[in-house]
């Protein structure tokens, strides 16, 4: 399959990249590995005038440990993140999530953490060839005002499929977005729009440069659950992450997220609220499952390789297992 024509830039400084982005706005896409982007280009899902590769920008790779935050530059290769001593020490949950992405070659050579976080949401009716889509008509993402998976839907229902998404959210991470005019740090809780056609709150002139994970104030216990038909080369059918701090027999802190259900990850705040401050007990896992099931029921549509019903049920199972493991039930 052939790539469409586009201009290719590989600036060596962030400033040059930002200048390009500032000029070209949404007509330029950031190439941060390309394991997702290049396939989408070949399928003619995107028609950018230019790609701006960040591979030559030195200060967009690497990991820094500050007294209170782990800063992962967006262009850092997935394998590099997973093998970094500070990540392994503080956030083994992230290591687990990265190890489940694609295959070894993707983790080692191409895929980046920023790329995984900003993966284009997926849909069985969208991630198809140009030929395929011609016979089916357009959707919100391809120029029309409808959704092929959910007729009449006002926005695109494609699936946020990154393995790191629920994990970074559960770790209360934030991202740094940089534009020519300055930079801002946005918590991930405010990063996802919920609209498949424009899934991230990022301005056209901005580039995501860092992922910032606060170091835990106490030992965390965690769980990452993901369901796929294969143990490699497979996007999750649904995934869930739980991060908890257990202290003096009580749940001091809990963040519980399910993802790969709809265009944005879903924080199960109701479950968190019920569980926080209480003593861990098996009932909590079942409650989390009920809440996840309800939440998933509201967002999952028929657009993945297994049915909507199955994915909704599995959201419950993944949430239950995540809580069970994180609360050591």
């Amino acid at each position, binding site marked *: 399959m052939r790539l469409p024509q586009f201009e290719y830039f590989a600036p060596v400084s962030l400033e040059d990249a930002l200048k390009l982005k500032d000029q070209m706005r949404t007509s330029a896409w950031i190439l941060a590995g390309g394991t997702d982007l290049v396939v989408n280009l070949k399928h003619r899902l995107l028609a950018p005038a230019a790609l701006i590769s960040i591979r030559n920008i030195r200060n967009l790779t690497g990991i820094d440990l500050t007294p209170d935050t782990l800063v992962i530059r967006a262009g850092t290769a997935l394998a590099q993140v997973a093998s970094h001593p500070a990540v392994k020490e503080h956030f083994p949950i992230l290591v687990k999530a990265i190890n489940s992405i694609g295959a070894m070659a993707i983790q080692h050579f191409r895929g980046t953490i920023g790329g995984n976080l900003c993966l284009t949401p997926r849909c069985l009716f969208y*991630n198809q*060839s140009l030929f395929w889509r*011609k*016979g089916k008509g357009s959707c919100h993402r391809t120029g029309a005002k409808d959704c092929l998976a959910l007729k009449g839907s006002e926005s695109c229902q494609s699936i946020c499929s990154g393995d790191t998404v629920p994990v970074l959210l559960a770790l209360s991470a934030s991202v740094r977005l940089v534009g020519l005019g300055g930079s801002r740090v946005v918590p991930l809780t405010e990063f996802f729009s919920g609209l498949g056609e424009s899934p991230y709150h990022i301005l056209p002139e901005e580039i995501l440069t860092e992922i910032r994970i606060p170091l835990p104030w106490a030992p965390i216990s965690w769980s990452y659950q993901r369901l796929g038909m*294969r*143990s490699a080369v497979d996007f999750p059918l649904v995934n869930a992450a739980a991060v908890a701090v257990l202290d003096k027999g009580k749940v001091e802190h809990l963040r519980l997220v399910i993802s790969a259900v709809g265009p944005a990850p879903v924080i199960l705040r109701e479950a968190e609220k019920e569980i926080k401050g209480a003593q861990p007990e098996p009932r909590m896992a079942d409650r989390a499952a009920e809440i996840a099931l309800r939440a998933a029921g509201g967002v999952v549509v028929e657009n993945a390789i297994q049915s909507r019903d*199955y994915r909704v049920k599995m959201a419950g199972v993944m949430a239950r297992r995540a809580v069970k493991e994180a609360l050591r039930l």
Partner: protein
Amino acid sequence: MPQQEYKLVGKSIPRVDSKAKVTGEAVFTADLELPRMLVAKILRSPYPHARILNIDVSKAKKLRGVHAVVTGKDTAGEKWGVFRYTRDQQLLCVDKVRYVGDEVAAVAAVDEDTALEALELITVEYEELPAVFDAWSAIAPGAALVHEDKPRNINVEVKIDVGDVDEAFARCHLVREDTFVAEEESYFMTEPYAVVANSHSDGSVEVWMPNASPHTKAKALSNALRIPLSQVNVRKITIGGAFGGRSDVFPAEFITCLLSLKTRRPVKLVYSREENTIATRKGHAMITTHKTGVDKEGRVLARESVAYLDGGAYSSTGPIATSVPFLCHEQAYNVPNVRFTGYRIYTNKPIGGMIRVHGRSFACGIDTQLDMIGKELGIDPVTMHLRNARKAGETTPTGSYVASCGMTECIEKTAAESNFLDKFNNPQPLRGIGMGVNSVQTGFPLGIRGGSQAFVKFHEDGGATVVSGVVDNGQGNDHMLVLIAAEELGLAPDDIRLISADTEVTPTDAGSYSMISTFGGGNAVKRAAEDAKAQIFEVASHMLEADPQDLVAANRKVFVRGAPDVGVSIAKIVRQALLMGRPIMGRGSFAPEVDQRREWITNPRGQLSQAFSFGATVTEVEVDPETGMVKALDVTCAQDCGFALNPMVVEGQFEGSVAFGGHGGMLSEEHRWHGGHCLNPTMLEYKIPVMKDMPRIKPIIVETIDPAGPYGAKEAGMSVAMSAAQAYCNAVGNALGIYFNHFPLTPERILDAIEKRKEGQGIRTAWEFQPARVIKTDDGT
């Protein structure tokens, strides 16, 4: 030659083609580069069913860099069909398109971008027509007709009735009827389809493409292009997998040749993965109703099966595909009274072809039902299989004599090795064990192309060149031919050059479908080598002053038996023969003894194949009842392959068969559809298994030394592919106490069956499906 004297066959040695494949040196069709070569692309129908009102190619023709544009008008509506009576596929659609992907027009241009741009410039006016997407709606009275001359969309009807089925049912102790459903599966060969055609000023055309029979491809192209057969030269090329999916002829090669003839330039067409999926072949979705009657001991006395195959838009190998699921089973099991009615139904979907497991719903249905009957009678699966197993010396219901058969040994060995009965009788929660058995033919009557011929010529250094029509599409046929020639001639594999699968140079062969290559082509090469060896011995007998009958060829020498030190080198003998004016030229041929009067529909009786392979597989699994995910733990598989020419290759075939037929085939592989659109045409969403998820596999080679096979060999691997499907199915069922009847066993299906499971309802299948019945057509036939 006594078995203990074999130098090469029977030993595990690396394949002759392995280095080239591992290093990337092997050249596949898409790698070919010829001077002045153009790139072809095909415009396909975006609709499942539509009338073509007009095609305007004027803009595309004007695009700079475009050398030719062809449509149905350039083909005179030429149609392809495997049989005279199934010619229903226009090589470029003229009047109608019948599935999403049907070929409408094609271009040849200087490069791929230009060709793609040209496709965009072709405008086709369609009138969309109502379409049918499954067998039930297609056979409904009043349904849209895919082909107007085929009422009820019935493409093929196979009827077999042997013994007195009704009388036998009447005296059965127990009769069950169950219905089994399976969705479409695909091959996902590593190499997507590709064709290179190069026409010449003498009117001839050379063609390279993945194929299972160069001679069949040449014949079809000769007919369609209306050029003499001797001027269509299909060349040899490395092929990246077939699994049944390269057996047929596709519009791709016809279109590429047409474009090359028009432009007088070489033309290359390379399919995308999606095109490989939708526009070559795929498996059939299938609904099968089995009615089986047994005596008190569980012996099957009668069986009636009705099957509906969702064939897609065209016939392809329809009569064969409709028959083979049944034929495998009449070989595997001794059933005296049997009736089979198979329908292949047209739908507006991609075309169904031959694929390894030959009907998951048929095969898995038989073994699932046997397990159910065993449960009712209190008989374990091993005993059920043993009691009904085919034995050597018997004749199948449709009249094939079975000369060699290791079915009982396969069942006993897999059962013993896996400790089957112990595990079956002492079940662990969520753990399951299951057994499947099956049988596959080695070839079937093919008329004038049923046999294989070979030549052996010598070089002055004592090396030899073998010429054979056999094609290697991944399974190791090249290696097999070299090994046999080297064994016979007393040479090393490195001493043998192989010229094969080139229709200009190599003689006819049956093709490497239907598992005939070793049995047919291997025998032909063996005979050619024996012929050459006899000539060598004749010359050597003068040089060694010995009787030719006392001579032995080994280690590149000929010597008197028992005196290997005083031999003469084969190189010397070859040169001596040249001096004597009697150059060594070996010829051999082999035509299997089959009944050439046998025909799939009009006369389904007589010897089908000269030999049959038999296999049994045991699978052990663990099921996650919350997610429906299955973890396969251990697989023990045995096949009677007659004789293992190279045990390492045979074991590789077994392992591949477990992955294809069992693991992927039964747990995850299926196409999903949205109308006529395949939702998962690529490898990401069509879930072929990955290495990481494969179970431990224990291969057991069973050898029965078939009287007619080369060194006793038959075929290797297919009986495992089929029995593995059945074993996986029964293992998952055993883990949950559920008899599954909808395949493959995806997690959502397993979960659904768990939720629907009701205690105390007796022995029943997980789902109730409408049974497949004999179709009464309007004219009362």
